[in-house]
């Protein structure tokens, strides 16, 4: 379970996050959604332990971030950066196994874990010997998920996982991603600006606007019982294409 509790954060006196609360139950997939400038990237960096915050708690299974060293915390949160964020100078295999090697894992243990994850994300074994620039966008995304899952973290954090992919690949990868999440059985927090992605992948959505949580709930709840006119306008703004009736 991932808990963000009463998070406040100011930059040079200007509030960026105000009293943010968010809970992702164990095994659930949750989307944090907001437009650019909403504070979602700041919240992501706080959750990763990259920047300090002013008040509140970040907890995994009721253990606070502050009680861990950065290394311990990193092993509890598997992070998939935007576009995969693979290191360009090493192969897929070395990207996946980098942290385990630094932690002194034995080679057979590393090989076994990589193989297990490779099967889970259904990646062709040959891809792991390639450098990132030799992989397709979808392959990079899957290698990045393997890397994030390598140390068996309790929580997975994904930043705009589909942003850079073209629409057709997006559609098919979304389906794969959903089944990968199910097989991983991890607590997942997804940060995105794309409502479609959030609705498709996550059970619950938290909408962030100007540093505050506007509403948390299922898509249905947001659609039918908006807590604020902004929720409706945010949803409507993302339904950009007219439907068949409107075109006719």
């Amino acid at each position, binding site marked *: 379970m991932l808990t963000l509790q009463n998070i406040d954060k100011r930059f040079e006196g200007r509030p960026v996050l105000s009293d943010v609360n968010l809970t992702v139950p164990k095994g659930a997939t949750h989307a944090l959604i907001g437009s650019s400038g909403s504070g979602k990237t700041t919240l992501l960096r706080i959750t990763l332990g990259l*920047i300090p915050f002013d008040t509140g708690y970040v907890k995994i299974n009721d253990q606070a971030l502050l009680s861990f060293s950065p290394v311990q915390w990193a092993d509890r949160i598997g992070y998939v950066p935007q576009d995969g964020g693979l*290191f360009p100078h090493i192969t897929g295999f070395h990207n996946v196994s980098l942290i385990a090697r630094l932690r002194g894992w034995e080679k057979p243990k590393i090989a076994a874990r990589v193989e297990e994850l490779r099967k889970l994300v259904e990646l062709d074994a040959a891809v792991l010997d390639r450098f990132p620039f030799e992989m397709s966008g979808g392959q990079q995304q899957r290698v990045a998920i393997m890397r994030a899952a390598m140390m068996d973290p309790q929580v997975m954090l994904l930043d705009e996982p589909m942003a850079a992919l073209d629409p057709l690949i997006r559609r098919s990868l979304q389906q794969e991603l959903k089944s990968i999440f199910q097989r991983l059985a991890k607590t997942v927090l997804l940060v995105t600006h794309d409502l479609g992605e959030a609705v498709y992948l996550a059970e619950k959505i938290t909408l962030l606007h100007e540093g505050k949580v506007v509403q948390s709930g299922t898509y249905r709840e947001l659609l039918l019982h908006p807590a604020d006119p902004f929720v409706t306008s945010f949803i409507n703004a993302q339904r950009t294409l007219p439907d068949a009736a409107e075109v006719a």
Partner: protein
Amino acid sequence: MNPRLTRNTRAGSWAKGVAAAGALAIFSLLPAGAMAIAPIVVGSKAFTEGYVLGEIAAQSIEAVSNTPVTRKLGMGSTGILFEALKSGAIDVYADYTGTLTEAILKRPDLKSLDAIQQALLAMDLVMSGPLGFDDSYALAVKESFAEQHHLHSIGDLAGIEAGVRAAFSYEFMDRKDGFQGMAASYHLHFAPQHVNRMEHSLTYQAIDDGAVDLIDLYSTDAKIEKSRLRVLEDDRGYFPVYQAVWVARKAFTERHPREWQALLALQNSISAQSMIDMNAQADIQHLSFAKIAAQHLGSEAPRSQSLKSSVLQRTREHLWLVGIALLFSVLIGIPLGMAAVRFHAAGQAILILSALIQTVPSLALLCFLIPLFGVGMRPALAALCMYSLLPVVLNTFTGIRSVDPKHLENARAFGLTGRQILFRIVLPLASPTVLAGIKTATIVSIGTATLAALVGAGGYGAPIVSGLSLNDVPTILTGAIPAALMALIAYGIFELLGLLLIPAGLRKQA
């Protein structure tokens, strides 16, 4: 607010550590001037007569001494030689009274030998009596040009000087008793666009080729006759007297009285004609300086080196110079480049400083370094280190700065420590740029190291400098060709190193 969160926010203490190590390495280079001098060191100026006199001095000392003699012949300029003498890097060399009063003591009023000797003694330097010949500045034109314009003396130039094309040596142009004073004294108004500054030995080439009409020369130059030049009479007696003398450190004359006596025995023993003849043997017949000096002294010439063994020796010297300089510039330059990224203000200072060093002319830099390091390898190494610093510092800085910050943040999010981020992510990603900087530094130092000969450090520069003073192209080539080959080989080695050091994922992309 949690202090632990900030601990890992940026690659932390590594930069401080390496910066400190770099500073230590710089300081360990410094106190070098006071090295104990076991051998007797003979210096010389970098033109034919200088080499001949240097060789005569060295052989005369060797004839009476058990102390080994080191030859630092062909050192850059009067200034370098005099600094070398004062700092004890050389013991003795031949100079001219006019040079001593005008350029060194800056006392043109001193006319008598005695007065000059007194002035030098105040600097703990001893001057011998005259060696017997006078080598003053003179102006010369082609015989044919002289006939055409009825020229016999400098004064005869009046009226035609504005159309005269001249080539003068740098020293002549800049000395108080050189061009400016001469023109003023004779009321001559040369056209500035027709007055060229060039290396002395090349002025003969220029007048031979008809590119210029008038050159300055030394009255004992061997090529006067060969080039069919007419020396114009100094009818106003403008040029000071340039009597050749030995100048030595007082400490040397006291510690080695027998050797100093051997040099004093040469007083009044070299006539102007025999000096011209010796210069001609070097410039025109291409005899070795050692042989010419031995003939003059009536002794046997020391065994001369074969071309192969001398090239081998110069290769060793050159490799040593470039290798050590490179090692230092890498050990200092990479940490400095890293520190420049880490500490913003200091970083700018480091970059500006290393760029400034680059703008100091190499001869001037060598001159500054002699009081600190003496002559020979040390100042040459220091200068080379300083010159090869900029490409390494700049490329390290640029290479690290160009690493996408998202990779650094991701690495932190994965729990990599500052040191792990540096060695696993930053340096590998920056390595192509850093290596390119080291490659540039290497190629540049192979070229610049040829200047090391001017401070007596040997290397491929030695034949280039002496060949230049003799206008002897084959000799120049024995230095220039191996230097070019070494640069090519270094280039190839770096291509191979690139295959080994640059991560494959980056190489294929490039």
